[in-house]
């Protein structure tokens, strides 16, 4: 039995050894990542989280950009037409997988960063950083509500709730203005503070720059609600202009890119899936627009339709059958600026809001008789001039000649009609002037299709060629897509809320692509 005693002693020791798990906590700590408290404690890490919020909310990653912007709003506002036969969105099909990823690219990638930075800056008393994330939150969310309408907004991040409710677009827009008021007040009180520095991919944390951005954003949102609440629109627009908006391209808001986190267009142009639209060709060629070579390249095959120009636009909504024949060589790709750097591209920063757009917003306000610091015509001309300067085309003389030009859009191919009949030179009745302003804004916004599609819906401009084919029974080929249908993942994970939004007053219509959003009231 001595041996049994020894054994039990031995086992007692072994038990102790085996249950000795002192290093387990360390073993189960990922050396390549860090815990959330570390981010909250470090302004540097907060800034890097802010940078990620900026890049992801603009859909910076190439494939996220493609399935959220390029294949929806960029196509629906007719900047481009797709040449890949399987890309159904050009035939007005809201492809479910892409839309799901568009939703999740914001809510899964960007929103947690926004919540994190907002909470951390508030907890640490970083007033400028907190104002910046508030402004950015408005910028990010207005893009999302402009796609879908009612969305989860006011209660996002509230884990005390069973489900996050949808807010009506009206409530969201009204709260945007309040949030901007708060942010502006915080910035004005701390103009000597700099937040995040290199973590801010737009202004390096300069509060003065963020003020003009906040005001310019307010102006964009104000014009957006013009038809549904003219009083609010006017007061917010005038408040914005009074407080100081973008005046030159030096003010423009971009999200900077680097060699690794690139401008998404620059990558997806390599994939050969879209070309210049017929509408673009009709307008840019008709106006003899000097921005044309900055935007697009001549077709590889040259002048294939015999219209005397090597720039060839493609009608949107091509059938699958017609796309069996490659349209890439016979139509205009993007200009080399937007191509891979190996092909002469410059990997440009991602445009958020520019001075040219701000002038067109002011021009539209002035058209309504609002105090915009100039006449509609003056501001229209400044918009064009600023855009030309931004694209570095022409000189004062040629720009002035362009502004005075009576050129009108032309047929994109022999036998076709021009897409519209308005000249560049400002004139005509108020509606025509509006069409001119928005058409020029559409040109200036390029390649920001997200905003261009919103303004197309709001104003109906620029006029578009009818699509060759619509495969959407709700939206005919000569109509405009009005919104995105809610995504299937929301029906899986937030069924009650999305159902309430559809069935209640929030959406105020069926969950279809032809239901107009709250601000879409013209």
């Amino acid at each position: 039995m001595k041996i049994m005693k020894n054994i039990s002693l031995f086992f007692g020791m072994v038990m102790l050894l085996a249950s000795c798990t002192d290093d387990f906590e360390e073993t189960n700590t990922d050396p390549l990542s860090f815990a959330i408290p570390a981010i909250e404690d470090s302004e540097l890490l907060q800034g890097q989280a802010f940078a990620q919020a900026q890049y992801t909310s603009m859909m910076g990653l190439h494939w996220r950009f493609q399935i959220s912007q390029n294949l929806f709003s960029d196509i629906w506002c007719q900047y481009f037409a797709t040449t890949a036969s399987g890309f159904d969105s050009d035939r007005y099909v809201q492809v479910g997988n892409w839309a799901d990823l568009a939703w999740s690219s914001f809510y899964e990638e960007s929103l947690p960063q926004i919540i994190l930075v907002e909470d951390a800056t508030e907890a640490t008393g970083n007033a400028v950083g907190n104002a910046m994330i508030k402004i950015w939150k408005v910028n990010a969310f207005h893009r999302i509500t402009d796609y879908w309408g009612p969305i989860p907004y006011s209660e996002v991040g509230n884990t005390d709730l069973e489900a996050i409710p949808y807010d009506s677009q009206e409530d969201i827009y009204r709260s945007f203005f309040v949030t901007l008021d708060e942010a502006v007040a915080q910035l004005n009180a701390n103009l000597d503070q700099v937040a995040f520095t290199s973590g801010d991919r737009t202004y390096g944390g300069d509060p003065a720059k963020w003020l003009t951005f906040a005001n310019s954003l307010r102006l964009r949102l104000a014009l957006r609600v013009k038809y549904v609440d003219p009083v609010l629109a006017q007061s917010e627009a005038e408040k914005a202009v009074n407080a100081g908006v973008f005046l030159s391209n030096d003010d423009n808001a971009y999200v900077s890119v680097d060699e690794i986190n690139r401008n998404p267009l620059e990558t997806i142009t390599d994939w050969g899936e879209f070309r210049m639209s017929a509408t673009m060709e009709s307008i840019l060629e008709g106006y003899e627009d000097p921005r044309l070579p900055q935007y697009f390249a001549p077709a590889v095959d040259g002048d294939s339709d015999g219209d005397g120009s090597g720039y060839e636009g493609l009608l949107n909504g091509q059938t699958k059958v017609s796309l069996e024949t490659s349209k890439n060589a016979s139509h205009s790709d993007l200009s080399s600026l937007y191509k891979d750097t190996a092909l002469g591209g410059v990997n440009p920063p991602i445009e958020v809001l520019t001075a040219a757009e701000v002038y067109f917003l002011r021009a539209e306000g002035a058209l309504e008789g609002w105090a915009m610091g100039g006449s509609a015509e003056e501001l229209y001309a400044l918009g064009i001039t600023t855009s030309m300067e931004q694209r570095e085309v022409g000189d004062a003389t040629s720009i002035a000649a362009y502004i005075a030009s009576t050129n009108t859009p032309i047929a994109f191919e022999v036998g076709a009609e021009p897409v519209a009949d308005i000249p560049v030179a400002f004139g005509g009745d108020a509606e025509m002037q509006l069409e001119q302003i928005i058409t020029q804004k559409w040109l200036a916004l390029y390649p920001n299709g997200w905003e261009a599609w919103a303004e197309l819906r709001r104003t109906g401009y620029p006029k578009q060629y009818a699509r060759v084919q619509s495969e959407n029974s709700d939206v005919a080929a000569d109509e405009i897509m009005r919104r995105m249908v809610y995504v299937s993942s929301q029906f899986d994970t937030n069924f009650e809320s999305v159902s309430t939004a559809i069935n209640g007053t929030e959406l105020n219509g069926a969950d279809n692509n032809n239901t107009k959003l709250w601000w879409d009231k013209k």
Partner: protein
Amino acid sequence: MMKKIFMFFVLIIWAYPVLAQDKMVTGVVTDANDGVPLPGVNVLVQGTTNGTQTDFDGNYTISASEGDVLVFSYIGTKTQNITVGTSNTIDVSMSEDASQLDEVVVTALGIKRQKKSLTYATQGVDTKSIDEARPQQDLVNSLQGKVAGLSIQTSGSGVSGSSKVVLRGNRSIAGSSQALYIVDGVPLGGDISNLSPDDIASINVLKGANAAALYGARANNGAILITTKTGTSDVTTIDFSTTLTADTGNIMFNYQNDYGQGSAGIFNSTSTGSWGPRFDGSSVANWSPSPDITQSLPYTSQSNNVNDFMQTGINIANNISIRTGNEKVRTFFGYTNENREGIVAGNELARHNVTLKIDNKMYDDKIELSAKVNYIRTETDNILDTGEAFTNPWRHAYRLPRNIRTSDSEVFEYIATDGNVLQNYWKPGDNGGANPYWTLNRNQNESVNDRVIGYASLKYNFNDKLSLMVRTAVDNSTTFREDRDYNDSYIVADNGDYETTNSISIEWNSDFLFSYNEEINDDFNFNINLGGNSRMAENKYIFTDNQGLNAPNIFAISNALTLTAEQDFNKEKVNSLYTFGQVGFKDALFLDLTYRSDWSSTLPFDNNRFDYYSAGLSAVISDMFTMPEPISFLKLRGSYAEVGNDTNPYAIFRTANTVAGGFVQLEASQPNTDLKPERTQSLEFGVDARFFNNRLGLDFTYYKSNSIDQLFPVSVDPAFGFSTRFVNGGDIQNKGIEAILTGTPVQTNDFSWNVSVNFSKNDSEVLRLANNLESLVLETGNSFFRQFELNVGDPWGNMYSRGFVRDDEGRVLVNDDGTPQVTDGKDVLIGNYNPDWLGGISNSFRYKNLSLSFLIDIRQGGVVGSLTNAILASDGALQSTTIGRDGTLVFGDNVFGNLAVVKSDGSTNDIQTDAETFWTAIGGRNAPVGEAFVEDASNIRMREITLGYSLPSTLIDKTPFRNIKLTLVGRNLFFISNNASVDPEVITDPSLASSDGYESFSPPTTRSLGLNLKFGF
């Protein structure tokens, strides 16, 4: 070389020991199957340590007294007890033990036990032909069709790759359902795909969690136990084996040969589809974008252009094994060299596999020291990318337009006017398309894997009853892979792309085990064991990429436009203590008990221990009661086990990662800091019965397992600020039966016939997911075709896709343009992959020195969905697309005539459309109607045939050879019946739970035919 071997042989003869004797018993031991002398048979005087082994001619000599019992044992044969009589010669013929009832089987921790005492299902695999009919990919494929309850699906990656191996159904929602591999008692970190079949002595499959409670949590999916060969204690044998096999692919898609490139009936040389005019032999424009290739081409059918893409794969394997030793030291050495060429040019593998295993007894056999090192180096060129990877050559080969001539497409590049070398492709720059020969030659990869599996074990025998074993074992694998994609490959960085991947994985187990045996009296014996294990597993990799190259097609990291990199690391530790024991009564009733505690680093630190246990009872009825004459053996068994499991490392804290460029990104998942360990509860009952003097045997098992408290991520509304949440939930139930019938219908001296039939049927059901969760979409690899859902109340593995819209009466609705109305989302159940049942029938015949065996493998039921068919249909490449090209296609009439199709007014559809409009509407890549491209996955195939001839000993005796055997082998030779146009067994990504039942540009099924020559000294 031969001379040296001969010298060696002579030396062995000379050194052969002459033993002192009371009385010398001699004899020859032969194989009852073919009469060939058996070397290395253990001969032991029962109750003593006096033993020997037969030599290379099957001869033995042993000193024994009259009345002693000689025990002859040899792996895979029935042990024979023969009492020494007056004669000094005892010749023994060892017969194959098909049922292996008396066999000593290797169980947990390398412990050998009598099979009849086991309380759970284990099936030994006939490994006799495993080194002859060698599988072309993963060694485990040798088990296909042989083991009841085992499902194996192979990878589509060519000559290399790991299979998906599932026992008794899928059970894990977020983890692996695959079996654990145990080699020589040590769990591997990886699989057995690169082990050499020549080193294998035996394989046992432990099917349930019951069998595996002692291997720890990972064995809750069952375990595959492999014992490798060891040295001998008396004799030296040298064996050579060489195998040459040829593989051919079999493309089963039903291509049309009437129409070529174009659209709407009009020829277009840049079309990827075959919707052009009917072939008329006219001359058409050359498709090549090369300025130098301009001659017109004949517009004719090229019916073999896809077949031409294949070559005959050649596999050559050579092995030398040396088994040697004496009573104290036994040594095994094996070296295997393999060279494989796939059915796609450039897909090649070269492997060296060296094993050295030494077992040493010291100090009056008090100490047993064993060590093994197995070093495997595998160099693989051009591992085939699978599925929709644009570098998968099959993605492009299958889609060859029907008029493209092989000789033209083989010219895969050209020099453009600007001097650049570009891809010669009919639709340059097309989304996802390529010339398959470009992919073959210009999208290349090579990888080198070095793997070391080894252990060192020391056992101390305190006395006959008590022993202590300590052991440490490692499985370390490092891989370096390079990918080279040339300039002008679609979606590849400009000027080319160069990626490197460096990965290291290590699994390190250290064990101790105390064993105590006691025979209380003649009726009662028991053993009790106490052991511990410390396991560490670590994986890391570094991946480098670029944003394009500076100099075109120079594949060097220094040539990267912008170097980018990814990194991953994970590590876990598990410490365990366990005890197990068995009580035996009258050698007929056995009670098994096990208990184990694990401490895992992956669980919350203050709650990181989980315990599990098993209990089993085995009763050999035929040893307790007198049985009726026909029943020669009857055993009943039952057992219950509950096995715990931990989770992945780093799953309990939410963290953030740095992203290159100065970003910080939060993890999307909200962890559960309150994790409970997973549990699998498993119950089984079985009957082993043999009849008619063991000529007929039946092994029947019923089992039921429930995997509960599983840890898995559930998608939540991302507006919470996170998109998944880890939950503890789930109850996945699998229940089923397994039956193995073995028989020897004919047994004479010259002729014998053995047959073995196995059958298994598994029914799964999702009993529970989590609170308020009735449905869960499993990881789908982002397929556009289908998603894989678990729904409460349904079986595992339901596939959903788009389907036809039906009215209340189930009639399909048609659009005004004659195309079907299709559901928007992937919300139509298109079927379930899991078979209704699996079966295998194996026959082996012997006539004198000639042996023939064949194995028929049956799977019945289940479906497979094919993205390839959906795309080929929208390409107009399939025979089905030739109907109604002139605009006379009527859905529900001349296509899908089995469906009742109605117009919106309820009347029968008569809207005419054309085939191109119809098939592009329902096929294609982005939104295919899965319902239209799902096929019955049932098939019966000739899995394995071997025809062997051993030179008779009368011929061999005069030569230095011990044996010479020539075997013709065939694997996967043909389908006896197959309902699908693809091989449902070849899957895209065996590591995904949702890979089952989905075909996406998989390589064709291949048949192998070969020759094996073995000779030994």
